[in-house]
């Protein structure tokens, strides 16, 4: 039984992106169908809707287009997540929408992926939405990308066309931050090069899409360098009568970087108070060490002021601590972002007030040039901004640590999540509130 093997089966989380109708949902349907990951009742349901609405033709996209409005319009509106496993790997797929209007949902699906499949329609080649999605994948630092050149059946399986599209990509890829890009010619509709190799592409010697997904080496998502522990919840059992728990005081959270060991000196930021880790408490018993992204409860040697929103860090590889920040943002709201606007900003475990002090630039998707000092960032725009927060953030550069380098902006009143931010590296050394006050 593959699922119970003692060796950890590693998990690939990938998303499909690209423009409307490039065939993303069809591809996922095909992947599940051909890898025998569909169950009989799911196939039956497909057949049932094929008879009702599809003139007898199965529509593989219906497997992930789970909303009525999506099936009616034949488009994907929001991300659908699918789970499947082969003997070699477990997969979480996020089928993200191609429509520009739903870019926010594409960002949602891509933000937790460590691999992206970008689809292009072989007839159309690279279009604005292909560039936008590639750019978002690069911005989110998804390290691996497959460009699936789809609908090859409609261009007569032309090798020349495949290379043209490849060249279109290679023109702009060097401007982006993606390490590993592969190109695969396929037909999602007919299943060529998805799970089974196609007889129509003798000129292509690479793997099928599934072959690639099973084999690609994915490094850890987690940073094991500097210890970071954003405090989520103070753990104080309210049991005055019980001698065992009477004095228990712990801080609970998820380690968002590095490793912590019993006896290790640590600092609480932004206050700068120092203490040592006395115990690493879990319900399954105490640990001598724990690492990112485990959830634990730390008991500290001194009874110091620590609460939600504080970050406990190790004394090597210090983070930045600042309330003046520079970040890249993906803007997701129809009300544009302008300098002077105020939001709630959620970063690790704290939500603070924030004002956007300036807009540094806006990325032009058409040529990947930047427009300096733009008046505003509109919906689906990407750009760089400066923000000032009501309380300092304890942060790392997004490129070093996704968990401590990211934030979201929330619009007061509507409570909509309107922006996704990725922090630049800290520019100054940390300035704790109490510099040499060590207990």
């Amino acid at each position, binding site marked *: *039984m593959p*699922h*119970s093997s003692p060796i*950890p*089966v*590693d*998990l690939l989380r990938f998303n499909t992106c690209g423009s409307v109708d490039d065939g993303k949902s069809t591809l996922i349907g095909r992947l599940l169908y051909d890898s025998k990951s569909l*169950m*009989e*009742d*799911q196939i039956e*349901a497909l057949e*049932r809707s094929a008879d009702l609405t599809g003139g007898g033709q199965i529509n593989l996209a219906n*497997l*992930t*287009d*789970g*909303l*009525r409005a999506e*099936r009616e319009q034949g488009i994907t*509106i*929001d991300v*659908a*997540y*699918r*789970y499947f496993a082969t003997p070699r790997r*477990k997969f*979480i797929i996020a089928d993200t929408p191609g429509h520009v209007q739903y870019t926010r*949902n594409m*960002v*949602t699906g891509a*933000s*937790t992926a460590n691999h992206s499949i970008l689809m292009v329609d072989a007839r159309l080649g690279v279009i604005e939405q292909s560039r936008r999605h590639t750019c978002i994948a690069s911005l989110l630092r998804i390290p691996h990308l497959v460009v699936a050149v789809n609908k090859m059946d409609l261009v007569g399986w032309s090798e020349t066309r495949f290379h043209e599209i490849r060249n279109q990509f290679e023109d702009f890829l060097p401007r982006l931050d993606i390490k590993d890009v592969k190109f695969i010619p396929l037909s999602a509709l007919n299943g060529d090069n998805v799970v089974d190799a196609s007889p129509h592409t003798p000129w292509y010697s690479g793997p099928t899409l599934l072959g690639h997904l099973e084999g690609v080496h994915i490094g850890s998502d987690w940073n*094991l360098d500097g210890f970071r522990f954003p405090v*989520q*919840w103070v753990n104080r*059992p*309210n049991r005055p009568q019980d001698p065992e*728990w009477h004095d228990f005081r712990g801080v*609970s959270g*998820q380690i968002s970087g590095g*490793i912590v060991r019993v006896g290790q000196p640590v600092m609480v930021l932004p206050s700068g108070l120092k203490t040592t880790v006395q115990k690493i*408490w879990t*319900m*399954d018993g105490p640990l001598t060490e724990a*690492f*990112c*992204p485990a*959830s634990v409860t730390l008991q500290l040697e001194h009874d110091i002021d620590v609460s*939600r929103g504080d970050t406990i860090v190790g004394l090597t590889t210090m983070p930045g601590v600042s309330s003046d920040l520079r970040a890249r943002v993906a803007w*997701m709201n129809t009300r544009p972002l302008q300098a002077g606007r105020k939001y709630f900003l*959620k970063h690790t475990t704290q*939500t603070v007030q924030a004002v956007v002090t300036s807009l540094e630039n806006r990325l032009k998707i058409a040529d990947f040039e930047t427009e300096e000092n733009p008046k505003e960032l509109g919906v689906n725009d990407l750009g760089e901004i400066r923000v000032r927060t009501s309380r300092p953030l304890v942060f790392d550069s997004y490129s070093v640590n*996704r*968990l401590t380098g*990211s934030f*979201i902006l929330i619009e007061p009143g509507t*409570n909509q*999540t309107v922006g*996704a931010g990725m922090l630049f590296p800290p520019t100054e050394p940390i300035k704790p509130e109490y510099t040499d006050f060590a207990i």
Partner: protein
Amino acid sequence: MSTYHLDHLQYLETEAIHIMREVASEFERPALLFSGGKDSICLLRLAEKAFRPSDIPMPFLNVDTGHHFPELNTFRDARARELGGRLIVRKVEDAIASGIAIPNPGEVSRNRLQIPTLLAAIEEFRFDCAIGGARRDEEKARAKERFFSFRDSFGQWDPKNQRPEIWNLYNGRVNAGEHMRVFPLSNWTEMDVWEYIKRENLAVPTIYFSHRRECVRRQGQWLPVTSILPPKPSEEVRELVVRVRTIGDIISTGMIESPANTVDDILVEIAAARVTERGSRADDKASEAAMEDRKKQGYF
């Protein structure tokens, strides 16, 4: 592979614990929906892991349709007691009596009537968050759901206008009267749930294991014989060796013929299964959008 590596279940566990703690910190009056089914059994263990040695800082809430398997309610009550938690039960029957839930003429199923009962309970206790055990792999409308799923003041889900949910930064802000549904098990599959039950050595209600039961053949499924909808003379009745794979109401839960007696047997059975777990729920078969429609109105 480095030794600093969480395996798949450990990863799912830490993801869920993080979510539980976010709920405890960001909401004033959260509740945890606990039915006694396998998913919510996992939820309770995750809550223990998130909050021990403190008490779990939220009550457990269950909507009793009056058509539950009796074994399920017994288990639910015992488990809640064992954990020292406060269990709140709200009954569809009472909701009908007080006019909160209004059955259609001849409507026997309590499935739809759970919705107003649940929403009334949320209003009664002014809960601003309800943690549920739904998983994205169960059904394709669920596959669209966020971890933090916003409900407006009518308790409705607007699937076309969900908040973006980026990284693990969950936006838990709600205005008065609105609430959030939170699903820590979103990324778990049926297999993951049973593997976790095995690893954690969790007790589950006996109906998940093989037992003898009188069943009646309806709509291509074997349903338990009950006094609520007794078999008609024309219907085929048999005593079979069965178990449940997913638990709904006793009048709509298909029993699967199975000799699986232990969690290990169940794991083997699921690995070989050719139908999904929801394939045995009559309530989902009503139409392609049955789940979506119920969810929009406030279903779990």
